[in-house]
């Protein structure tokens, strides 16, 4: 898209915000629109002449100034950038300066007098979007971003969104780490970060507990390693082992993804708790005493590996299939034995995928909140400790912020290590050139080992999900009361026919909201994520590293911290979102964004740049290359991002527990309440319904968007589902 047309479009959008859309947020909901163009829904142009919003006048000249030049077909870079930036700055400055209860900054009091205003609305949002477009075209016209206005707009826009919805809320809450009793205290930060509660090594000496940081690190590393190894075993069997169990494999990979939190933990308790089914058999048949081993590191680890191994499998399977067989063929032709080929060719090519699988397992384990909550016992990790520092009986936001900083540090440490291990080597295997050959079968010993690991694990997974399936239909599975009943489903999902359908079950409201929010946030997440991935992987522009950092930031922050930071940042004007469904959508989009971005980057890393260059040589601009070349090749990554963000939006808990409101409650929060009340059966029944819905959606998305076929002869390759 040319700079001129983009600038005109941006100005039009800003004009729309100025002239038509309600400037302030609609306090009374959609019904307020009736009062347009006056009252609560008044656009800015109706507010200005009255003089009550006189401090907004500067916006008008800022937005009118570029008009003559643009109308004449010129793109004055400096002017556009200055006007756009000025408008953005002014909107936020006045919004922060003049709040609900009058002037926020005492310095301005004598100048402004008695003024107050409510939050920014759709009109302000449109003006901001237009102003961002002006800044972008201005910068592009001055030669930045390779002179491409489209890329400039993407960068400026996404950077603005990330700043607003990731960086600022985090800064708000993390600054609590250096504040004590309302004053700045760097010494308090030092004390909080180095507290023995986090770093104690007492567990090595005697039978005390260790610091939370060590606990968290141990758990995350174990989860990462075990799930990667299990995933690798499954991936090798599936891609190279000639096993005819693909449907079972696929089912196993999807199930943990679509499982709401807590259920796996509950099921593990039913199986291995002190009065559990397996524990009981062990006692009766072998005299193994009933113990409580499941509560603590082993239980949490088991639950996390159950969830992560399939994700590792998906990642690694794609990578194994994507390895061009010609390299391996070359090695065999030169006389290498099968195991040597595997060791020297296949394994090194898998390195990025292995690193990615480990990293995902590691990071997901750091962020996991539900499993440690239910199964942790005395074993404390950072995520739960942070939650209770904020919401526990001893309210200590400073400590919570310090612990969150530690968690952040661990996550970024993991990313840094990954970058170090993969190094600067190239792993491209999908090129524009033809690539034929049959992949080498697995060495026999390796196949045996993989099978010995994979099949028992499969059986174990089946048992865990079997319990979930049964649990919703019996009286109380926790106490072994196995009489069949519909009671739990009736409580949650009763439907009555009284002149029309009436949803009487107590779970309906939260179910409808959840589906709505997930359905809106999933495409937004996938779209923004893939765009960002493409920007980060294929474009070079100043500030690229910082943009990448910001996309990863929200992944590294525990959900509880995100939730509380969103209330702190968005409960008062200028950006007032609490209590709406919008805040849930935004929270999900930016929380799940990293997955779309990482998946997209991983997929792009395997697509040779020569394809982009070919498109560019033939005269394709950025938009065309993206649309015609990159997006079709990225289809699998898009499918993965869509499915993943939908599923995550339906299963997230810790981030939204503070954001739900009476009108917009979510399924997971409802389930947490059931678990708290000890009503495991109802929780399990609800989870079964959620699992079915998510299954239908994931399969539906796959059908709708389609699975990519990367053309190779001999073996029809299945998709590279990177970064699921």
């Amino acid at each position: 898209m040319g700079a001129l047309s983009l600038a005109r479009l941006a100005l039009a959008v800003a004009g729309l915000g100025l002239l038509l859309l309600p400037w302030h947020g609609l306090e009374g909901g959609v019904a307020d629109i009736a009062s347009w163009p006056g009252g609560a829904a008044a656009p800015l142009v109706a507010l200005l002449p009255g003089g009550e919003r006189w401090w907004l006048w500067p916006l008008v000249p800022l937005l009118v100034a570029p008009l003559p030049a643009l109308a004449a077909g010129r793109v004055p870079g400096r002017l556009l950038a200055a006007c756009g930036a000025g408008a953005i700055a002014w909107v936020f400055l006045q919004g922060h300066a003049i709040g609900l209860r009058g002037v926020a900054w005492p310095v301005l009091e004598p100048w402004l007098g008695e003024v107050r205003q409510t939050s920014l609305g759709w009109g302000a949002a449109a003006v901001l979007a237009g102003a961002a477009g002006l800044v972008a075209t201005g910068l592009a016209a001055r030669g930045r971003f390779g002179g491409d206005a489209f890329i400039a707009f993407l960068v400026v826009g996404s950077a603005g969104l990330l700043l607003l919805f990731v960086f600022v809320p985090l800064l708000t809450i993390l600054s609590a780490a250096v504040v004590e009793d309302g004053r700045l205290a760097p010494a308090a930060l030092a004390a909080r970060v180095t507290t023995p509660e986090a770093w104690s090594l007492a567990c090595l000496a005697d039978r005390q507990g260790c610091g939370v940081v060590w606990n968290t690190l141990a758990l995350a590393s174990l989860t990462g390693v075990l799930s990667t190894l299990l995933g690798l075993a499954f991936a090798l069997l599936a891609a190279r082992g000639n096993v005819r169990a693909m449907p079972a494999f696929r089912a196993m990979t999807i199930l943990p993804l679509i499982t709401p939190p807590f259920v796996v933990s509950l099921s593990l308790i039913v199986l291995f708790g002190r009065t559990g089914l397996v524990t009981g058999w062990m006692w009766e048949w072998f005299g193994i005493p009933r113990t409580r081993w499941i509560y603590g590191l082993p239980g949490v680890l088991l639950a996390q590996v159950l969830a992560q191994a399939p994700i590792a499998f998906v990642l690694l399977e794609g990578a194994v299939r994507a390895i061009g067989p010609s390299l391996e063929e070359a090695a065999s032709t030169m006389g290498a034995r099968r195991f040597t080929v595997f060791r020297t060719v296949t394994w090194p090519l898998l390195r990025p995928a292995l690193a990615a699988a480990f990293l995902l397992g590691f990071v997901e384990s750091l962020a996991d909140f539900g499993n440690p909550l239910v199964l942790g016992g005395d074993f404390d990790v950072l995520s739960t400790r942070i939650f209770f520092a904020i919401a526990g009986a001893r309210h200590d936001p400073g400590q919570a912020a310090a612990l969150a900083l530690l968690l952040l540090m661990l996550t970024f440490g993991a990313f840094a290590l990954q970058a170090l291990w993969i190094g600067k080597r190239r792993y491209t295997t999908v090129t524009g050139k033809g690539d034929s050959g049959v992949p080498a079968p697995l060495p026999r010993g390796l196949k045996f080992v993989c099978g010995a690991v994979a099949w028992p694990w499969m059986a174990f997974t089946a048992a865990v999900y079997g319990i979930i399936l049964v649990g919703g239909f019996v009286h109380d599975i926790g106490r072994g009361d196995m009489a069949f009943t519909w009671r739990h489903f009736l409580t949650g999902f009763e439907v009555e026919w009284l002149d029309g359908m009436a949803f009487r079950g107590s779970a309906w409201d939260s179910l409808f909201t959840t589906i709505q929010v997930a359905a809106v946030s999933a495409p937004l997440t996938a779209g923004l994520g893939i765009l960002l991935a493409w920007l980060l992987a294929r474009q070079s522009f100043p500030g690229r590293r910082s943009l990448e950092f910001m996309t990863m930031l929200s992944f590294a922050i525990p959900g509880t911290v995100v939730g509380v930071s969103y209330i702190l940042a968005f409960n008062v004007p200028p950006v007032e979102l609490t209590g709406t469904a919008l805040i849930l959508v935004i929270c999900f989009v930016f929380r799940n964004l990293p997955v779309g971005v990482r998946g997209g980057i991983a997929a792009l890393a395997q697509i040779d740049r020569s394809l982009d260059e070919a498109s560019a040589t033939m005269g394709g601009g950025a938009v065309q290359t993206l649309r015609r070349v990159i997006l079709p090749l990225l289809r699998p990554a898009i499918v993965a991002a869509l499915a993943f963000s939908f599923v995550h939006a339906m299963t997230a808990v810790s981030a939204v527990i503070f954001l739900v409101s009476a009108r917009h409650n979510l399924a997971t929060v409802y389930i947490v309440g059931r678990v708290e009340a000890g009503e495991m059966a109802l929780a399990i029944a609800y989870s079964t319904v959620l699992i079915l819905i998510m299954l239908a959606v994931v399969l539906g998305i796959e059908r709708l968007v389609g699975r990519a076929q990367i053309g190779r002869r001999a073996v029809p390759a299945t998709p590279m589902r990177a970064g699921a």
Partner: protein
Amino acid sequence: MVSRRTLAAAAVAGALAAALPGVARAQGQLTVYCSVQEEWCRPMMAAFERATGVRVAMTRRSSGETMTQIRAEAANPRGDVWWGGTGDPHMQAAQENLTVEYRSPRLSELQPWAVRQAEQTGFRTVGIYAGALGYSYNATELARRRITAPRCWADLARPEFRGEVQVADPNTSGTAYTMLATLVQIMGEEPAFTYLRALHQNVNQYTRSGAAPARAAATGETLVGITFLHDAVTQKVGGAPVELVAPCEGTGYEIGSMSIIRGARNMENARRFFDWALTAEAQALGAEARSYQLPSNRNAPIPPQAPRFEDVRLIDYDFARWGSSQERTRLLDRWQREVRAAAR
């Protein structure tokens, strides 16, 4: 292709409509933060809607979470009334000026403990129910191990209960903090900590939620669970083989409370709800919802299953002293240092 696009457009439009910032209308509405079990919250709100015609928007969260929410929203409050949940956070909210004073005309109908709590907080909160602290044990498991039934706090420190007692972590749960403060008041601080160190040897897990040990005792995951007795009653009524114990040395109790949030948008309705929730009829709803606390209105029927205060040796629990954040922090720090950190 066209149909898919139309579909997508419709979805987006619908979503936008749903996502438009919408806040409760000023008339005929009320936002309640509810901190008891969902089964009790729902009929309570429905009954109030029927009685007054006011539309209630209710959010259920634990009392700690609600406290966090109210604190975070202090600059622009969203809720009107905070109903239910243990009294400590309500008193903290009163102390932090997050709630407002309201003297309900129904104060005269209340039990003395409820009135005293209101007086102590300058009428910023009021007791709506009370529940005694105690423990429950799994009778089946106890018989299988041939252990004599415990009757007192001291019994729980006996060696045969090693690894068999479950209690919440006072850092995360008001229930466990109530136990800590109760023991200090019964025994004196030094002997109480000696006892807690002995009990620590027998604790298999410090749970995070206060009511979790009752459930664990019901399923046999632990032999003894220390909770409020009404949580254990719920398990017993549900058919679990548990027996309840009100310890012989005496025990403390919680006062479930209600407060009006400062800056409530529907102040008029908030007061109406406040008055209504103190009536005998409203308080009778608890038992129907399988919550067996003792109602604060003297005329409200006491559920037959509820552990009666007459049968329990209640101590004169000093809520003002042990609820203050200073004492709380000191006790919790000491517990963390001397009890929790000890080897076992």
